[in-house]
């Protein structure tokens, strides 16, 4: 069973998250620049409301046995301060039905090709 983890994090924390994933043994990831707002409805500074706050989305696919470990790794790397702040982001987890590697054309069933948790 494959799981896609899409995490939306602060742009300044994206490198920390990618480094943490690499150290944890999950090198494969894709990052995108996105913009959005959370349930705080953006940031209000004086009269101006900013409701398209720049964020980075990091997409990574793991097998379901590694799911909790990877989520913990991302949360620890992306959180600001001790307790965290509004705007630190969200993590979305969705199932992946099938996965193919284009270079070989092979349908992957096990995730050895993407990475697994280092003991």
């Amino acid at each position, binding site marked *: 069973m494959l799981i896609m983890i899409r995490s939306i994090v602060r742009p300044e924390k994206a490198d920390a998250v*990618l480094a943490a994933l690499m150290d944890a043994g999950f090198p494969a990831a*894709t990052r*995108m620049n996105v913009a959005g707002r959370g349930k705080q409805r953006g940031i209000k500074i004086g009269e101006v409301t900013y409701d398209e706050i720049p964020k980075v989305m990091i997409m990574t696919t793991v097998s379901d046995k590694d799911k909790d470990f990877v989520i913990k790794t991302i949360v620890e790397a992306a959180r600001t301060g001790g307790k965290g702040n509004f705007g630190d982001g969200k993590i979305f987890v969705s199932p992946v*039905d099938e*996965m*193919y590697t*284009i*270079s070989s054309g092979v349908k992957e069933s096990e995730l050895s090709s993407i990475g697994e948790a280092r003991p």
Partner: protein
Amino acid sequence: MKEILAVIRMNKMNQTKKALLGAGVPAFFAHEASGRGKGLVNAVVAEGAAKGYQEAAEVLGDKGKLFAKRVVSVVVTDDKVDPVVQALISANQTGNAGDGKIFILPVADSVRVRTGENGACSIE
């Protein structure tokens, strides 16, 4: 209904557009992204780094370098998943590491904004 999410090389975008049209799927959306895979590299460079050549070690680096990629997203009905995946593979395959990955995710429903209709007829 499935979403096909393909991470491909930047310079394969035109072939991919043609291939999707050939597979009967004109509608898709693409996003610029950067990414890294499991870190496979040119065999010559890896061999050089193992032998201790400084230049090769510098090329490899110690942390994953992010490469520019395109993410293509197509939502299709279940029966079109296989032809679209085959079209994407044949258009993007060079046989080298870095060709990309294709993910297939379940989609609960889709709605055409113009008419408000939902289900399979909204993506056909």
